[in-house]
């Protein structure tokens, strides 16, 4: 029930914030802050109170309630380590988003906070639902408020950006809807039970051809959202035009829903098809890493630059997801969190600068270190995080991802690793152009004030914590990651799962009754991986 409350509090808070705008201009902010704090507290409590799941199942909390029984749709919410981490990230960034908007947003405050909270409600729903219909429902619910956030409070080119964002995500989402329906009917025809329940659909037996098509349907949505390179072009516009809170939520959370979808749905639902597609997906990832990094280097709009770094970083996510091993997937989960923090922080800094300078053009910046050293220190920490400096969270993420992907594909990993050099190039350029060199400004740039430090310090703490002692997070994610990999540990061992599946037409899905391996048992399996892949 706590899961429903999470969503309900956010939605109700949003409506309340909207209404309260009539009473008082500041009230919406406090209401928004209060509701986000409430849900953050609840999630934190969940995390602290139950660090390990019940034996044999990765699920920590579940909630089931029929919704549209005629179609087998239920309000089925479930929380495992992965979703828990994502929720923590969501509410953490949500809290910061409310704080950064405190000064930035001055028009239509009430409606802004309504949208902010509803985006978060949608994202929360996406991370929690175990019903594909409901998943799609929330997937769309998060779009509209986001559209408004960009379209109303964005920068000069906001309408174009908002349109682009909406059309891209909607188009890809519809393809996913088709795939969901396809799966629904295939499953229904097989078993006679028509349901959208994730747990039921996991048991669907798919012909290879059908599996491939359905997988592409799901992929379409997630790859666009992630985004992967040929489908990324909505992102720079949306990110650069959105208000700071919008950018933070876009980069920190919305992109993560794509990664989450890959982990939660694509991998377990289509084990054989994904194995087949894996090299291509990894290639897309690598292309994304390199292409994004290259484009980031040439941008002059700070937010656009950071947006392209997101493209690059998200390349690691898809690279890792399709490596199918625990290291890579843990790396992906870490990447989701750390990228949320580091890129979010960079956007926040861009927001701070914009508030002071009213420009995002880095050609008009420079030398701010001398007058704003605090901002400089914060910036350098996150710039370093973005180039993957060890000791900061992103390093753990990228290193684990690459270690994992190396087991799967050597050459692509090599190119992905080269991406880190390119990351260095663009990251240092940010530092150079904004904080170093000579200062052209007539008035000195004000350094961070207390409220801004209140935003920055937690992020720095988090990124350091993630870099130096990520174990609590990894521990939380572990059971669910092992669950997602279930389908692979079986087929990988047989060495040629694809060929087999094609001959018999039956993908190698192991019995679901064989529940999660215990953490202690993970080691032999990983050894198996090591021995298997020789080059």
């Amino acid at each position, binding site marked *: 029930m706590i899961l429903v409350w999470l969503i309900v509090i956010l939605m109700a808070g949003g409506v309340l914030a909207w209404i309260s705008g009539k009473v008082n201009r500041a009230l919406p902010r406090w209401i928004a802050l209060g509701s986000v704090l409430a849900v953050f507290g609840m999630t934190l409590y969940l995390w602290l109170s139950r660090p390990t799941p019940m034996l044999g199942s990765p699920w920590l909390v579940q909630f089931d309630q029929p919704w549209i029984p005629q179609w087998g749709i239920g309000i089925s919410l479930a929380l495992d380590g992965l979703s828990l981490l994502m929720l923590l990230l969501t509410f953490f960034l949500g809290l910061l988003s409310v704080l950064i908007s405190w000064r930035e947003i001055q028009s239509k405050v009430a409606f802004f906070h309504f949208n902010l909270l509803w985006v978060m409600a949608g994202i929360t729903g996406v991370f929690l639902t175990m019903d594909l219909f409901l998943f799609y429902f929330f997937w769309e619910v998060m779009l509209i408020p986001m559209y408004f956030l960009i379209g109303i409070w964005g920068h000069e080119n906001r309408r174009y950006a908002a349109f682009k964002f909406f059309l891209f995500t909607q188009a890809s989402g519809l393809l996913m809807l088709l795939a969901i329906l396809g799966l629904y009917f295939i499953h229904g025809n097989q078993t006679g039970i028509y349901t959208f329940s994730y747990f039921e659909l996991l048991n669907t037996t798919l012909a290879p051809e059908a599996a491939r098509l359905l997988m592409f349907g799901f992929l379409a949505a997630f790859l666009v959202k992630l985004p992967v390179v040929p489908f990324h072009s909505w992102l720079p516009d949306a990110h650069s035009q959105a208000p700071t809170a919008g950018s933070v939520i876009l980069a920190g959370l919305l992109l993560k829903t794509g990664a989450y979808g890959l982990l939660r749905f694509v991998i377990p639902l289509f084990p054989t098809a994904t194995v087949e597609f894996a090299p291509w997906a990894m290639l897309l990832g690598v292309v994304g890493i390199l292409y994004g990094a290259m484009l980031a280097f040439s941008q002059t709009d700070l937010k656009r630059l950071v947006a392209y770094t997101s493209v690059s970083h998200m390349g690691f996510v898809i690279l890792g997801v399709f490596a199918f091993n625990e290291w890579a997937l843990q790396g992906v989960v870490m990447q989701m969190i750390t990228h949320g923090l580091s890129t979010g922080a960079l956007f926040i800094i861009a927001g701070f600068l914009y508030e002071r300078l009213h420009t995002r053009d880095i050609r008009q910046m420079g030398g701010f270190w001398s007058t704003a050293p605090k901002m400089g220190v914060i910036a350098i920490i996150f710039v370093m995080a973005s180039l993957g400096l060890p000791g900061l969270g992103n390093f753990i993420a990228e290193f684990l991802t690459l270690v994992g992907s190396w087991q799967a594909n050597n050459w692509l990993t090599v190119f992905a690793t080269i991406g880190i050099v390119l990351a260095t190039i663009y990251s240092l350029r940010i530092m150079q152009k904004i904080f170093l060199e000579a200062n052209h400004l007539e008035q000195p740039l004000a350094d961070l004030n207390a409220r801004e430090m209140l935003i920055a310090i937690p992020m720095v703490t988090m990124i350091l914590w993630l870099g*130096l002692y990520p174990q609590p997070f990894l521990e939380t994610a572990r059971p669910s990651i092992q669950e997602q990999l279930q389908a692979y540990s079986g087929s990988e061992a047989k060495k040629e799962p694809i060929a087999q599946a094609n001959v018999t037409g039956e993908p190698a899905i192991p019995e679901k009754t064989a529940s999660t391996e215990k953490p202690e048992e993970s080691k032999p399996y990983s050894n198996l991986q090591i021995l298997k892949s020789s080059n």
Partner: protein
Amino acid sequence: MGELLWLIPALPFAGALLLVLFGNRISRALVSAIGVGSVGIAAAITLALGIEFLSTRPDFIRQEVWQWFDVAGFSPAIAFHLDALSMVFIFVITFVGFLIHIYSTEYMAKDQDYARFFACMNLFVGSMLMLVMADNLLLLYLGWEGVGLCSYLLIGFWYKEPANGYAARKAFIITRVGDTAMAIGLFMLFQHFGTLHIQSISTEAAQVWSVGNETAMIIALLLLGGAVGKSGQLPLQTWLPDAMAGPTPVSALIHAATMVTAGVYLIARMHVIFALSPVAMTAVAVIGAVTLLIAGFAALTQYDLKRVLAYSTISQIGYMFLALGVGAWSAGVFHFMIHGFFKALLFLCAGAIILALHHEQDMRRMGGLRQKLPVVFYTFLIGAASLAAFPLVSAGFYSKDQILWLQLAGENGNIWLYLAGLLGAFITSIYTFRMVFLTFYGEEKTHVGHKPTMAITMPLIILGILSFAGGFIELPHNFGHVVLFSDFLAPVLPAVQVVEGLTQYEWMLQLLAAVVSLGGIFIAYLFYYKKPELVESIHRSETAMAIHRFWYSGWGFDQLYDTLFVRPYVYLSKLNKSDFIDSVYTFLARITQGLHQLFSTTQTGVMRNYVAGIVVGAIMILTISLLL
């Protein structure tokens, strides 16, 4: 004592943290106290630990602070491993680091970003200690990248000058190229051993792989890539001369004594892997030999005092690589230590000179400083003697002689490598004393402003003593036969196998080395003191000047990389600034708009056209229904 191990890196880190948080709000004295004090205490602990280490002689001391993370068996810890090799490095880092910190309190006294400087320096010392004390390669990598960051921050310390920023980025990016190779090496190591714990890898690798194993070779070469990047060896050496843009204490600490030798440490640390691959060993030696020559020639032509020293650093690290490449592990590490002393000394002296001459670095505008800065002169002379391997009385002689000797006598030795080393030694002594003569002799060209005080001279004197006396702990066996150093390292690094029957000729080679060194000094004396017109005559020759320019530019590597990598990348990137993929979607949108326009023209508003439309539709439907 062993439980204090973690304090050694933690103290500088703590110092850095304090300075970052409060540096702008506290007095300079307190900043110095924190900055210098943290490293000083670390040095004291190192000393205490070292004494205990020497007396008890354990194989190693390990201390795990916490488990970093643990993913499916990949479980690196934040754990420190202290053995003889690390001991040597820690010693150099903390002591030289401490001295340089003291020196900096005076050198940087007038700088407005005093706290930032010490914060970065402390951070550097901490990271460097992390690097050499790590018990697994991932933690080592953390230190490795950490020092890279500090190097970046400190090279670009005076950030208002864009050129400094450029040099800083160049350093970071080029070393990152090497690091990428190293990272891939780590992936491979992990793939094969399921761990990055150095000791486990070393023991297992020796069991699993035989000599000549291809995987071992690839891994060794990849690690070498990392080492080459960090240590400024060919082909990634180009960043080091530019790195001199940083304050001189930085050059002394990071770009001479410690960080740039991280590559040496890495190879020595992973010597088991390297030993398994003759190809990689040869590669190390050849890279060393070629680098030391190229850098030596380049050093000959530089006018900037610090650039000469930078090239000489590259060249001397070449020697270390040369030693490592033939399996003379302890000789390489020995040279590292001695080099750390005398190169730090030389840089600090150079810093004193630069400070005295109002940040003048061009040797052509120096001269006659012998009387004005006597302490600097004599300590510089000791350093120069050591660098030039002045026979018998300099530490450098013993360390370099050992390397040269083992090129021939060592099992993997090679006459060409030896000759390269010998030629290098000759050039070294020429450019070294060129510096001495140009700077300290002749007439005074620039007014001496700041006279160094205690904070500068004391470190110089201490380092001078070390550069002079450091060599006596390891003497050739026909000449005292002191093997304190190699004995100390023996549990970690195997001794080199000396070919039978060559030992008797060792004195001839020593003599040759001495002659070469003295010959170099003589030539420098001739050209730059006695008969400067000889230099003039060289400058008149067109070919000589072409070569001069070529050497001066560091053998054209910068231009080469510029045309090969930098400019194409920047060009491509700028070309695609607006993202051509975006135009695909724009095109789609255009098409849709075009279709809209097209369809709109059918809506004429004239009723007869609508009638016609219906008729056309009817005809189509009837055609379909009748024909199909």
